[in-house]
């Protein structure tokens, strides 16, 4: 019916449009997602602060600087006062710390670039998760190995719900470096060595309990039986909520 030339041209056009549409669809469907857009976000910070040095090598616990995580919704990045606890003496002249010193003297906060951020219509609370002994690593990846912090998890609604439905697949249990209170006293024979430090005291009595990264539900000892006012009581993690109003209100 059509000329041969038109026929070929038509097929070509269809194939071309098909390919373009396919690519657009693939980009749109797989590309425009937090997994691709947000994960790996790794902004340059005003001060070249390294978690690998401070948390990894120096073994300064996360809560030394992000102490709010245990008691509040937010886990604030530290004030410059916190840095100056050490840096009044350590590397006091370092040019890399110039902005920190300036901020300390003037009182104006340092403007760190925000990385992890859920939309403003979502309410996320750290303290509830920390008290359930969920390690920072479950949601932030191995920060103590990062020279520059980058986002490791997508922070989508699906991601939150995946863990709330099947926590055992997603929770990394409290590790020493996070400074999460587990209510257990640890062995004091090996105080020199930070890895032994966290062998629970029960080991002294002959029943060793591994405490590094226990799987969900594998906390072998029951939580201590009494509570003291003012000390946040750790709890065993249950299922997280799935009703909309828990996170959107």
């Amino acid at each position, binding site marked *: 019916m059509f000329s041969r030339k038109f026929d070929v041209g038509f097929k070509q056009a269809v194939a071309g449009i098909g390919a373009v549409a396919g690519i657009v669809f693939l980009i749109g469907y797989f590309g*425009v997602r937090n997994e691709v857009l947000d994960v790996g976000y790794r*902004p340059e910070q005003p001060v070249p602060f390294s978690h690998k040095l401070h948390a990894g090598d120096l073994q300064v616990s996360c809560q030394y600087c992000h*102490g709010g995580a245990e008691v509040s919704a937010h886990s604030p990045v530290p004030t410059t006062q916190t840095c100056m606890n050490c840096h009044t003496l350590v590397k006091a002249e370092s040019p890399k710390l110039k902005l920190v010193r300036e901020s300390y003297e003037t009182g104006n906060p340092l403007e760190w670039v925000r990385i992890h951020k859920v939309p403003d219509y979502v309410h996320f609370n750290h303290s509830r998760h920390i008290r359930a002994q969920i390690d920072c690593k479950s949601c932030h990846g191995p920060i103590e190995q990062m020279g520059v912090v980058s986002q490791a998890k997508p922070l989508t609604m699906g991601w939150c719900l995946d863990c709330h439905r099947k926590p055992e697949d997603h929770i990394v249990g409290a590790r020493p470096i996070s400074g999460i209170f587990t209510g257990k006293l640890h062995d004091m024979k090996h105080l020199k060595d930070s890895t032994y430090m966290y062998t629970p005291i029960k080991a002294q009595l002959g029943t060793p309990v591994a405490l590094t990264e226990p799987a969900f539900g594998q906390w072998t000892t029951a939580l201590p039986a009494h509570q003291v006012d003012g000390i946040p009581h750790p709890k065993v993690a249950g299922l997280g909520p799935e009703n909309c109003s828990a996170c959107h209100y």
Partner: protein
Amino acid sequence: MKPTFRTIHLFSILAVLAVGVFVVAVLSGNITWFSTEPPLEFNPGMDHQFKAIPQSSNSFFANRSSLREPLTGTVARNVDVYTLGQGDIDAAEIENVNPGLPKTEFVAARGQNRFNVFCSPCHNYDGKGESRVAVRGQWAGIPDLTRPETQALSDARIFHIVSAGQNLMPSYADKISTVDRWAIVYYLRMLQGVESMPSTSSSPTAGRASTGRSNLN
């Protein structure tokens, strides 16, 4: 004929390549298109609402912080402020009274946890002072907390040092709650060998009984 076939082939090869790149990108889950730039937002919707959220910057105020400082002379609710200065040693002896923390494993464990978080960077886990920061940062003036001089300090005085600081040691009153600071003092006494370790079998003495899960609600 020939050139058209070639173009079709070219298209399909390109398409396959593009798909391949995306499958790898998505599966590896590690790729960001603009890694040091803020993430692209295709549908911002209500992501950024016109309100001050913690730790946001705010060009309205001179120091660009949306968090406001309290007025001078005001005190936040539910926050105990430590009012003594570094020099008020005599007042510290009288005013710092242990709120009657029970000497249980739970309290010792809390003291240990807070000590490891806040004190061990400088004083080391055993309190002897050869910590990572002391070694790497060449900080020579960090004392051994288990030495007799420190053992001789009263509980109230140690609480005072932690709360107000002493010379180069910073104050921790704003970072550690009052109860936690007393728990630290208790644990420090255990490190010094002054207090003995509480028995691990939990004694049902002080405090409220709680049943694992439900006590936070």
